[in-house]
């Protein structure tokens, strides 16, 4: 694939008058037209908002002609949003038949902030139903395809957003990450994906999956673009009491371009089994390059991380079973009529939800039910505390923790759908950051012999996205020289 244009270069070219927001919007729509429904039919987009985007771009051009100094930090930049983030007056399906005709009556806070910064929302991207999945195969509207090899999954659940950026349809996109749903597809598509600290970005207008784990974050071609988008969407929001009242720093201002004084922790014992040999080899090569460039590699222990998958799938499903109780055929979404009120509930939910969503609601309902709560849910929340403490201990001696993003490169469609446990186990490296509430960024670190992208992730202290973005930026420079 040709080198992708960066968001900053695109914005600056519009600011210099070399092209208009309308030009950029039309170019994005033309690329989507050529690659998405036809051509390789990547199906990155669930819904393309062509008319809305053109109108917004025209308004930006009009305002810019009057007063160019008012141009925002994302002036004229087309952006794609995962279809679980709501935009007023447009359909948001979250990949579910339940919400096939749901038109949002309001904007998500990230939408308001993006548009205030001059971004142009170009469409809504394919995702696993209610963000539950690692491949987009759980979308009720068909999966998205990996642009590197369309016979393979793009990762998930924010797969469509990863594809939009990897295939050059947009330079940036938003996804949501509950257990790896931004970082894993970023790794599998060969781009950058950031999960911010829990509470950094408002979740208002994000269709909820696991409320103590969900965070919205950017996909981009590089760390600098990811930092820019994070600066725009981050910060306290009165509509989300879990969004923190913390100042949002200029992340890119902390970029040094170097890892020379950086202490990087590697949990080598976690990598001893279950990691694809090519992924492990690429990861070890990256560590060698970082060492050559002056980073200090420290072997660390994260002793409770081997229980992270179990804790994650009990906590996330428990929260999902409560969050998805709202889909009952009464206030919004589908309804299957007939019989009593409870028969209507049962039929609506039984038919409206897909197999994976029902599986997770069942698991979550079970672990919260009388007699099992202590053994499963409470135990998982205690293990979660231990996982958080492991990271706190590690960050006493290192600046960032480095590990692979996914233990395997992109797999073929259908390869894992029949065995949910095997699908869950592949989230082994991503769920810990969500359980501990800390930020993590996935960056490309090479390819397999057949050309499939491999990713690794830098994890950071809570609220310290600056350090991991700086590390990711420095790594890009090292990788570009190799």
């Amino acid at each position, binding site marked *: 694939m040709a080198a992708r244009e960066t968001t900053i270069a695109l914005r600056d070219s519009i600011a210099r008058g070399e092209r208009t927001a309308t030009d950029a919007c039309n170019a994005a729509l033309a690329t989507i037209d050529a690659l998405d429904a036809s051509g390789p039919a990547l199906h990155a987009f669930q819904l393309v908002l062509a008319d809305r985007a053109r109108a917004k771009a025209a308004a930006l051009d009009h305002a810019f002609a009057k007063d160019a100094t008012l141009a925002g930090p994302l002036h004229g930049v087309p952006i794609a949003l995962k279809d679980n983030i709501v935009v007023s007056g447009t359909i948001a399906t979250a990949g579910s038949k339940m919400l096939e005709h*749901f*038109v949002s*009556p*309001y904007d998500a806070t990230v939408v308001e902030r993006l548009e205030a910064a001059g971004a142009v929302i170009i469409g809504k991207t394919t995702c696993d139903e209610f963000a539950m999945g690692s491949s987009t195969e759980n979308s009720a509207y068909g999966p998205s395809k990996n642009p590197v090899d369309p016979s393979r999954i793009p990762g998930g659940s924010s797969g469509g957003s990863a594809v939009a950026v990897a295939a050059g349809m947009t330079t940036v996109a938003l996804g949501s990450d509950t257990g790896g749903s931004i970082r894993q597809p970023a790794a599998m598509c060969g781009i950058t994906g950031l999960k911010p600290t*829990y*509470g950094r970005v408002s979740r208002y207008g994000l269709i909820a999956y696991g409320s*103590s784990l969900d965070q919205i974050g950017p996909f981009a071609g590089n760390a600098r673009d990811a930092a820019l988008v994070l600066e725009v969407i981050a910060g306290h929001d*009165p509509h989300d009491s879990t969004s*923190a*009242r*913390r100042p949002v720093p200029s992340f890119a201002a902390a970029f040094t371009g170097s890892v020379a004084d950086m202490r990087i922790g590697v949990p080598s014992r976690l990598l001893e089994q279950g990691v694809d040999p090519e992924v492990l080899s690429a990861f070890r090569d990256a560590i060698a390059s970082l060492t050559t460039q002056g980073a200090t590699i420290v072997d660390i222990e994260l002793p*409770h991380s081997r*229980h992270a*998958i*179990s804790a994650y799938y*009990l906590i996330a499903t428990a929260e999902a*079973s409560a969050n998805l109780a709202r889909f009952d055929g*009464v*206030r*919004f*979404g589908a*309804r299957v009529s007939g*019989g009593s*009120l*409870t*028969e209507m509930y*049962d*039929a609506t*939910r*039984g038919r409206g939800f897909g*197999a994976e969503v*029902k*599986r997770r*609601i*069942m*698991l979550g*309902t*079970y672990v919260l*039910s009388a*007699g*099992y709560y*202590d*053994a*499963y849910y409470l*135990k*998982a*929340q*205690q*293990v*979660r*505390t*231990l996982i*958080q403490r492991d990271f706190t201990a590690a960050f006493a001696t290192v600046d960032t923790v480095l590990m692979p993003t996914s233990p395997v490169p992109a797999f073929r469609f259908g390869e894992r759908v029949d065995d*949910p*446990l095997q699908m869950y186990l592949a989230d082994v490296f991503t769920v810990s950051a969500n*359980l*501990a*509430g*800390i930020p993590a960024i996935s960056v490309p670190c090479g390819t397999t012999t057949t050309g499939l992208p491999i990713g690794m992730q830098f994890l950071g202290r*809570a609220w310290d996205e600056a350090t991991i973005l700086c590390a990711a930026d420095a790594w890009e420079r090292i990788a570009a020289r190799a």
Partner: protein
Amino acid sequence: MSSDTKRADGARFSRQDVARIATLARLALTEPELDLYARQLGGILEHAEQMQGVDTAGVPPYSGATTEDAGDALREDVPVASLSMDAALQNAPQGDRVAGTFVVPKVIG
């Protein structure tokens, strides 16, 4: 029955167990789904049993990464605008805009 006994049983789901959970979750499941979930949920919980070996004596359940910020989560109790009735009803499968209500099957006789 102690929770330990129930946990040991829980690793092997019967169709009746699955049907009971489906009732709690308000999900109408088909016969093949009952069989599928009995098998799959059993497998997932069997894996999660490994977690029981972790010593969690005296460990508090997780209360958030951002606890230092939780203290200021309260706001002044000032009324602010919310969705209009029409906007709230626009996605209802069955709504009555005149009465301002969501309409459901008859609940009381």
